């Protein structure tokens, strides 16, 4: 600790603390542009100059550490003079276009010019201007306004992990930009909009849409991944104008992903469902809520009476709020419907019959993640799936963590990966078994894992797997293991989960799940599962079908809740399309119409989208995060929980007792608190279930699918700016060059992919070295991609080029 004075008052701070950090802590105002607490120090703008005793010149507060006995004045004539001069220099080339600048009203330059600037400019020479480059659909550039603080450049290097913006040219000709006209493609690029202290980088979708001081701000939670980032929703006259990050150092710090920032554009999609609609003689007819709800209940009851409780399948969005989830399962179970599920991407449920499923949390706090020593990610591409988890991983890697990936294809990581295992044919299970096998044969053998040995009798560990085992098996290290979205969607999902559990147990590691949607944990807690009720209680009777079985064999009726679009969201979209179009009755609770829903649904009920309803999401850490509505739903749309409350009441349940959504949440909380802890059957017992899988052949060609970053839910799919980014992939079957040549396929060809009796489709081919052998990699949920069946073994043929 050192003692020093600021403005003649005594303070103390740890050695090495910068003057600006102490000033911020003590709420002493020091102007600044280039300094940002989350970025490195460059001291280039010189705005934070302060007077320091015995220093011949004023010093930059952002780059000067405090020292014992130091005397600092932030508002002395010397300091003020220096700050005023710097401000005058910064304004020399800055245009006076504040009236038409989107930053106006929330501009650091404007604010500080008011405080520290002179009233009149002495500069009479010509101002420089900079030609703007188009850097994509998200960020608007007006580089003439740039003051060269380089926050955006440092953000690229230090946070986004990819340098896309730079400072080119010299002196008067220095410009911040991409140099060549090209898009900025980072998945967190939008944060430079907040970082930019002036109006050089602003939000393109928000361009000239409103003034900062007209906007109303409501705190909310981001709805697209299990991180649960804190955001502010800014509205103007009841319409969402933009979404910006809300600082929460234990979750998203000061950042949010582009997906969370720009998805709001989808709220204004022409697809918004504004009134309850019933299909009569194949025509959609507007109706009122009463009629629509009664029609829904009567139709479902008729089918249930005729065909029994298993005749209706309910698919609930993993991004539905906790209150919606809880009320949905309560209403559905009250009706006698037991097939309820939120695990839409999943196709393998063989673990389900082995006891209750574990609550899919991270297994550790996000702040602990960046302090882990070894991290094993299985079937995970966090950069597109949970961009801010990726940021924590990058931080961990910078601190020296060994990060190991077991993935179906090679990805571009923006941090150092210690090992990347990409088995042929997407067979993720085999490297995991190899690692387990190597761990078991390490010197420090543990007798209580002896039962594992027979399961591994066919496994031979590769040198790479042995190396990974070496890293994982070192004692006294903090190890974290995660099952990502692709592990959960994998055809061996259950087996992967069990082997991961064994690995975690052996290495005394935490085991976590990086789940789909914003509220998978909440859906689990509310009992949106076919065999588990609220609080995760196993249902001894009345078990229903899981999401995959619901469509594999078509059911007479379906309930879709929360904007679920099975033709995009389910593991097997071919089966989903068939099942829904063959069913007698489908009711869709959704903010949107359009797409296939118009064909298969009989009733469409308009519910509020995420900014329009109050509710709660439980993030992957298990944090219950409630939020309020920021704007009213359009037309006659109502918050989902209110619709479900009305339905429960109509069915004679106690639904009308809730007057506020908090009561729903608190009722569930009460249930959760009183749930007895469950003991799972031993790992050994559960392992027996996967024994047949272990002896399966790993040969053969397999299709591996992946949901692209901006195709994960109905809202994102309707956000035009996100769809316009370079991250929107083309519909291609990607193949390794070796595999391609095996089937005499070339890059320009088309390929016929077939699974006997299930599906057949023809796709253009892209040859890509990042795809392991025997793997056909295809993006899911693309427009026109509905002919692709679920992942797994397929046959492929070269398609003649006639129709190319």
């Amino acid at each position, binding site marked *: 600790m050192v003692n020093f004075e600021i403005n003649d008052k005594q303070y103390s701070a740890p050695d090495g603390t910068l003057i600006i950090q102490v000033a911020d802590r003590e709420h002493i105002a020091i102007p600044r542009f280039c300094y940002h607490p989350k970025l490195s120090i460059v001291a280039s703008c010189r705005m934070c100059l302060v007077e320091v005793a015995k220093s011949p010149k004023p010093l930059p507060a952002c780059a000067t550490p405090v020292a014992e006995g130091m005397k600092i004045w932030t508002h002395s004539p010397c300091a003020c003079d220096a700050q005023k001069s710097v401000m005058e220099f910064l304004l020399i080339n800055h245009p006076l276009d504040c009236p038409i600048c989107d930053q106006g009203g929330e501009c650091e330059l404007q604010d500080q010019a008011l405080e520290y600037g002179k009233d009149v400019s002495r500069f009479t020479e010509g101002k420089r201007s900079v030609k703007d480059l188009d850097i994509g659909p998200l960020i608007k550039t007006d580089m003439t306004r740039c003051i060269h603080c380089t926050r955006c450049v440092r953000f690229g290097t230090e946070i986004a992990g*990819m*340098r*896309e*913006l*730079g*400072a*080119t*040219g*010299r002196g008067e000709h220095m410009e911040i930009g*991409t*140099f*060549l006209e090209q898009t900025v493609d980072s998945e967190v690029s939008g944060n430079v909009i907040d970082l930019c202290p002036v109006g050089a980088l602003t939000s393109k979708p928000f361009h000239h849409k409103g003034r900062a001081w007209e906007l109303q701000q409501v705190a909310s939670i981001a709805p697209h991944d299990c991180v649960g980032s804190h955001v502010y929703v800014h509205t103007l006259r009841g319409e969402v104008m933009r979404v910006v990050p809300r600082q929460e150092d234990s979750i998203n710090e000061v950042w949010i992903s582009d997906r969370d920032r720009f998805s709001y554009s989808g709220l204004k999609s022409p697809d918004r469902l504004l009134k309850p609609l019933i299909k009569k003689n194949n025509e959609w007819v507007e109706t009122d809520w009463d009629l629509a709800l009664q029609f829904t209940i009567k139709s479902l009851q008729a089918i249930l009476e005729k065909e029994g409780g298993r005749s209706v399948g309910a698919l609930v969005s993993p991004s539905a709020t906790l209150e919606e989830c809880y009320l949905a399962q309560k209403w559905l179970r009250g009706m006698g419907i037991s097939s309820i599920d939120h695990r839409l991407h999943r196709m393998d449920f063989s673990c389900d019959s082995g006891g209750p499923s574990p609550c899919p949390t991270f297994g550790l706090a996000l702040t602990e993640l960046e302090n882990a020593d070894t991290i094993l990610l299985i079937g995970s591409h966090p950069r597109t799936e949970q961009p801010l988890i990726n940021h924590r991983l990058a931080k961990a890697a910078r601190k020296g963590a060994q990060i190991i990936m077991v993935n179906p294809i090679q990805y571009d990581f923006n941090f150092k990966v210690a090992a990347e295992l990409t088995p042929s044919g997407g067979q993720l299970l085999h490297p995991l078994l190899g690692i387990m096998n190597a761990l078991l044969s390490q010197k420090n053998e543990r007798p209580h894992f002896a039962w594992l040995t027979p399961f591994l009798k066919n496994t031979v560990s590769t040198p790479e797997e042995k190396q990974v085992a070496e890293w994982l098996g070192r004692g006294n290290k903090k190890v974290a293991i995660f099952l990502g979205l692709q592990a959960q969607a994998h055809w061996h999902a259950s087996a992967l989960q069990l082997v991961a559990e064994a690995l975690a147990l052996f290495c005394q590691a935490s085991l976590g799940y990086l789940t789909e949607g914003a509220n998978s944990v909440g859906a689990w807690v509310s009992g949106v599962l076919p065999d588990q009720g609220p609080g995760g209680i196993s249902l001894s009777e009345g078990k229903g079908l899981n999401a995959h079985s619901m469509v594999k064999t078509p059911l007479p009726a379906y309930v879709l809740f929360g904007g679920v679009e099975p033709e995009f969201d389910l593991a097997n979209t071919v089966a989903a399309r068939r099942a829904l179009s063959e069913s007698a009755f489908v009711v869709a609770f959704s903010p949107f119409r359009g797409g296939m829903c118009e064909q298969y649904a009989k009733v469409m009920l308009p519910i509020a989208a995420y900014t329009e309803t109050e509710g709660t999401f439980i993030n992957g850490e298990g944090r219950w995060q409630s939020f309020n509505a920021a704007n009213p739903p359009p037309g006659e749309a109502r918050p989902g929980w209110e619709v479900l409350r009305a339905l429960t009441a109509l069915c004679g349940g106690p639904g009308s007792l809730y007057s506020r959504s908090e009561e729903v949440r608190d009722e569930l909380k009460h249930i959760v608190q009183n749930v007895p802890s469950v003991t799972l059957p031993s790992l050994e017992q559960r392992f027996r279930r996967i024994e047949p899988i272990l002896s399966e052949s790993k040969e053969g060609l397999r299709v591996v699918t992946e949901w692209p970053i901006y195709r994960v839910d109905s809202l994102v799919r309707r956000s035009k700016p996100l769809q316009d980014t370079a991250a929107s992939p083309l519909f291609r079957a990607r193949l390794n060059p070796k595999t391609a040549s095996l089937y005499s396929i070339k890059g320009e060809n088309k390929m016929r992919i077939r699974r006997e009796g299930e599906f057949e489709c023809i796709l253009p081919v892209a040859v890509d070295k990042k795809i392991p052998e025997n793997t056909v990699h295809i993006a899911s949920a693309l427009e026109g991609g509905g002919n692709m069946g679920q992942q797994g073994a397929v046959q492929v043929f070269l398609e003649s080029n006639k129709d190319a």
Partner: protein
Amino acid sequence: MGFVISQSEQEEIDRWLLKYPPHQKQSAVLPALKIVQEKNGGWLATEHLDAVADYLSLPKIAVYEVASFYSLFDLKPVGKHKIYVCTNVSCMLAGSETIVGYLERRLGIKMGETTQDGCFTLKEAECLAACGGAPAMQIDNTYYENLTPEKIESILAGLNG
């Protein structure tokens, strides 16, 4: 990408890389650009910059920054010989304006331009650190001092166009 750094250029760059720690390949970006520029017609196209970035495992923008910062790198086609005339204080006092004027008339181009036959590019240089021999100019890698129009004439003749 069309351009690949040749074997001999790679060897030269590798010699520079040896001088720096292995994780600081960025340190070799200046010599690498210089080598590639010299061997490829005296200027750097985007594909040359990208190749250097790839070779040194740097983000492309990091190379663009350096190449656009230094006036010694030309990012547009230049003539066979680059003439840098110093116009800084000492040379100016010693008559660099006359030298510039003579060169412009003699070559029929303005400062910053290239002759139509592609032989010469005329560039203004800040201090060449040759004040003792002002006025001075640099043609390619050679310094010429105490310039007069006659001397320039013989220098240009010696370059064989």
